[in-house]
């Protein structure tokens, strides 16, 4: 008990040091721009007390906890997360717009966009094991490609969608070439630099991109030529089907577009995993040297991973542009890359269902905290750290191996270190 008290006391002292000045002495700009301090002793006292009792509680709980004996299950359960949650989520996703709640559908679109981005990045990070911190660059390329093509040449969304994907994939290749020789963290920093370069160029090339003002008036998608404007002419969706014009149709349509795109991403990456190319990606992730020794062309393998991942980022970007009808460089900052990467890693690298779950928890959860806007990102950051410390392998930390001999099946998290997964 005294040890616990001492431990909690030290924690409280550290908390006093950390929060004492930063929280307790906020600088305020007075009249005439003169700075002064506005002491907040009670806020600090509360924080320190919370830390003290929190630490005390944790220490006592840990001391009294009986050591758990982990029973090693030898039988593989048929009901894994992927088998149960997958169809369930799919069913919910299909019927979600039927609820007709505009706000709910909007959140659905947002979550679905991140699910798609997550699945796209999963190809690069989860399958090929290449850490990409600049994924938002391809998202931006897709968005600006669609916006510029639509505004300059008057092309429609469905024509531009594949073009945006192709352009983003092309940029992925372009980035891929120089970084092929780099390993791990060097790769991460170069992709981050690349993302920043794209953003700075978008911000300053005013003639082409409109600079910080962005591009507005981006056309909305149509359904086989039927527009979703508020009117009842024969060329609008409502008029053609003799419905009362409503904004909900367009939102629901957008929802199904991104839903379809996300499913496409999932389907393609699941298929690719079973191809020799996908197996080469996973082999590359586990051991590059062994890959070379076995005669796998590392260059093409990495480049295809980059290009395909970037292509899906481009699709998502084009969708983002058409959904918002307005884009500016502000939407493509590093924090977006960080969020997408967090979705992939929290979901459990390489696990498709995990990415979907993580996107729902993080993006949907973020929307719940929308009212505490100031604290939202603070909570997001802390949550990232806590989840990593508690479950470093992600929420769904097991996955079905692409190849297995005989009665394979699910691989548990603790087996997933190198060489087993």
């Amino acid at each position, binding site marked *: 008990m005294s040890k616990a008290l001492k431990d909690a006391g030290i924690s409280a002292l550290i908390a006093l040091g950390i929060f004492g000045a930063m929280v307790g*002495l906020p600088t305020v700009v007075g009249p005439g721009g003169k700075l002064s301090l506005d002491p907040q002793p009670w806020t600090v006292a509360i924080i320190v007390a919370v830390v003290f009792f929190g630490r005390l509680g944790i220490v006592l709980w840990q001391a009294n906890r009986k050591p758990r004996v982990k029973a090693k299950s030898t039988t593989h359960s048929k009901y894994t997360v992927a088998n149960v949650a997958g169809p369930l989520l799919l069913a919910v996703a299909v019927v979600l717009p039927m609820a007709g709640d505009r706000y709910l559908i909007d959140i659905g679109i947002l979550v679905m966009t991140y699910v798609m981005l997550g699945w796209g990045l999963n190809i690069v990070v989860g399958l090929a094991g290449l850490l990409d911190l600049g994924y938002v660059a391809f998202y931006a390329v897709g968005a600006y490609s669609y916006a510029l093509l639509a505004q300059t040449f008057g092309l429609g969304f469905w024509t531009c969608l594949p073009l945006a994907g192709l352009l983003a994939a092309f940029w992925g290749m372009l980035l891929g070439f120089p970084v092929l020789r780099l390993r791990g963290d060097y790769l991460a920093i170069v992709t981050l630099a690349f993302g920043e370069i794209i953003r700075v160029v978008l911000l300053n090339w005013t003639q082409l991109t409109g600079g910080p003002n962005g591009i507005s008036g981006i056309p909305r998608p149509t359904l086989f030529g039927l527009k979703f404007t508020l009117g009842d002419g024969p060329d609008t969706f409502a008029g053609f089907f003799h419905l009362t014009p409503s904004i909900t149709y367009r939102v629901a349509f957008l929802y199904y577009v991104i839903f379809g795109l996300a499913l496409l991403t999932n389907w393609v990456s699941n298929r690719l995993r079973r191809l020799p190319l996908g197996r080469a990606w996973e082999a590359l992730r586990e051991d590059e040297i062994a890959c070379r020794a076995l005669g796998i062309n590392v260059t093409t393998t990495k480049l295809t991973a980059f290009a395909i991942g970037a292509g899906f980022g481009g699709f998502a970007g084009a969708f983002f542009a058409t959904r918002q009808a307005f884009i500016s460089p502000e939407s493509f900052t590093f924090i977006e890359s960080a969020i997408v990467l967090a979705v992939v890693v929290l979901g459990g690298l390489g696990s498709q269902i995990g990415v979907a779950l993580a996107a729902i928890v993080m993006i949907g959860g973020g929307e719940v905290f929308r009212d505490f806007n100031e604290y939202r990102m603070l909570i997001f950051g802390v949550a990232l750290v806590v989840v990593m410390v508690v479950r470093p392998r992600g929420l769904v930390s097991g996955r079905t191996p692409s190849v297995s001999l005989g009665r394979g099946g699910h691989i548990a998290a603790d087996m997933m270190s190198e060489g087993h997964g």
Partner: protein
Amino acid sequence: MFVTTQNPHTGGSLAYALQQLINGITLGMIYGLIAVGYTMVYGIIGMINFAHGDVFMIGAFLSLIALTGLGMLGITYVPLALFLTLLFAAGIAALYGWTIERIAYRPLRGSFRLAPLISAIGMSIALQNFAQVAQGARDKNLPELIPGGFKIFEENGFVVQLSWMQIVITVVTVALLGLFTWLVTKTSLGRAMRACEQDMKMTSLLGIDVNRTIGLTFVIGAALAAVAGLLFLLYYGSINFYIGFNAGVKAFTAAVLGGVGSLPGAVIGGLAIGLIEAFWSGYASVEYKDVAAFSVLIVVLIFMPTGLLGRADVEKV
């Protein structure tokens, strides 16, 4: 990111180039101080401490708080106030460094490669927004504490100036790096650090407390970052909660450019990035100076994947 003083005089003259050189070196010194923290941590545990740039930002805020508080207490003798601020900011920032390592990175040691990096990104986002919530989102301005300087020479009406502030930055940086080099090469702590860098398991078998050594590395890195924060605050006179990201990315670029793990490399890389930015802003365009710095990084890494002074890392199978 940083606004380098741009003169309406067009380039071309020697004086103008010299002025850019002075500005670039000053900026490079600040980058170098931050880069040392990155390079040390990377050298020992092989992770990008993504939150390091935000520790720099916290250091700048702590300096602002200390200077404001000392001003309110009536301590206006500048050298004394600066010395007290330096101690305060470095001390508290060191506590930040230690705590971050303890709660966000230590539990993840031995986990898979991406885990600490994600944790660090989370920590960076948390620190940034913590500063925003605690100290407000507005830019905070500080009046110039060390004004003046002297003219070096004049050419065609263009005056090359060296401000006292630039001299202070250079002197403080060089002194700290000297102290630090001594620490790493001559003391037992430095030996322990270098041993951890080579083989952590063997080091712990030889009776060295690896956790303590790594914790101290974070402490030193954070203290240096806080000094950089103080110098930044004094030099530019304006800070906000977002300065950490850009400075962090630039400093990491500097560390990679110089060769991650090498201390002189970090300083050389910092100077290189500072000079590239200053000359690019002076002769080409201020808007694209970040692009220039990052492009140089990419080009260097293509031709020298280990940076300027880095050791080639031979992977054994």
